[in-house]
Structures are given as structure tokens and as C-alpha cells.
């Protein structure tokens, strides 16, 4: 991702990966290692095409806000 929005910045920009707690329990070192591995995961390469192939022809026409509330 390029992460142009503030809410989903690239993981490389994060400075706060490690658990904040200063607990010295070895379990948190292990969990940190596991989390580090998960952060490197990327979407399988076939997914983009799979999603594009599954899309309908066009988005639905936008409903007025009150209709969306009533439909919930």
C-alpha cells in the first residue's frame, strides 16, 4: 500500500511496533517476534485479479442517507 491517508500509513513508518509494556516476560519477546513476522505478510499475488474478476459490472446507485438508515 502507499498509505496516503493518515489512518493506514505504511508499516515502515511505524515507530511503535514493540509492546509498550516493559514486561520482561519471555512470552512477550516471542509474541513480538511472531508479530514481526506477521507484519511482513503481503496479500497473495493472485488476489488482486481474483477480486477484480468477482466484481459486479458497476457500483450500485447511491441511496439517500435516510434510506440507508432504514435499510439497516
Amino acid at each position, binding site marked *: *500500500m*502507499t*498509505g*496516503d*491517508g*493518515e*489512518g*493506514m*500509513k505504511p*508499516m515502515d513508518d*511505524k515507530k*511503535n*511496533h514493540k*509492546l509498550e*509494556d516493559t*514486561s520482561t*516476560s*519471555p*512470552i512477550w519477546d*516471542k*509474541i*513480538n517476534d*511472531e*508479530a514481526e*513476522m*506477521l*507484519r511482513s*505478510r*503481503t*496479500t*497473495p499475488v493472485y*488476489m*488482486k485479479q*481474483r*477480486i*477484480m474478476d*468477482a*466484481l*459486479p*459490472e*458497476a*457500483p*450500485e*446507485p*447511491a*441511496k439517500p442517507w435516510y434510506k*440507508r438508515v432504514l435499510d439497516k
Partner: protein
Amino acid sequence: MDQAEAVSQQPQYEDPDVAIIARVLDGSKDAFALLIARYSDPLYRHALGMTGSPDVAEDILQQSFIKAFQHLGEVRGRFDAWVFRIVANACKDWLKNIRRSHLSYDDDDQPSSLTTPDEEMDRSELRGDLDGALATLAPSLREAFVMKHVEGRSYEEMAVLLETTVGALKMRVHRAREALQSLLEGKYA
């Protein structure tokens, strides 16, 4: 009209997602691929952290992008936060509905940096134990823990994406950590 004038008359968007959405709504379905490329990785990681299953994460990602495409005309505000909530809700619905037997990252098809069979076995066991412990948490606690400690997000960013307060999220993360600590420390401490 010269080229400079034509460019100046095009709508200018501060958020590039808005321009892409406008193109899709104008009939350029292929432009939606730009949004998939931009946001699929963090969304996939969230779904993987929440479900523990690559297959389920892929299905949730696909269904969420289809839903986002169908309702693209209803986006108000930031697309990334909007599509994140679609994925997050799908993950929580899955967690609420599923009676899990054994799902883990074991069907991982991505290369590992570990070299020895012993290291692989230790890691596989930790994954299983961690996934099992996470599965016992309430979905909202698991969500907060995964976003903070797996995805590495700030509390402020989480508050925007989940539409809640920093204080509430700190409490959820704290409770998740306490629960995980008590579930796992006997084996790993």
C-alpha cells in the same frame, strides 16, 4: 482550449482516493484495481491477525472489496477508514459465528526466514498456542490487540478507524494482554 487550461479545469482532489472513486463511479471499473493495490496488504494482515487463517482472510478481503465496490457511491470521508471498517466488521462477524476446531497459519505458503526444522517446529507451536489464546478473547479485545501489537498502529490511528476513544482502546489492549499473559505464561515464562 489549450492543454494547461484543460488541466486547470479538471477537479483537484487533496485525497487521491477521491479522484479514483470518481473515475470508478464514472464507469472506469479498472480504476478500482488502484484501490485494491493501495489497501489490500494492511487489510489482509488485519484479517489474517483476526482470523488466524489465510484462506478465511482471503475470503474476507474479497467479499469486503466487492461490498466496497457495490457501495462506492456511499463513501463519505476517507475511503481507507471506510473500507477498513467493512473488513473489521466482517472479521468480527466471522469470529462471532465460527465454532473453530483448528485453524492456524499452518497452511502458510510464504517463505520462512527460519532455517532449521527445530526452529520451524518451535514457531509453529507458538503460533498455535498464540492463535488458541487469541481465540479465547472477545472479538473487540482481539481486534484491539491485533491492531496495536501485530499491525503496529498508534492508538490515535486506531481510534479513527474504529470510531472510538483512545482511552477505551488502551483498556481493551490492557485487558487482552492480561488475558494472553495468564493463558501463555505457564508454558513460555
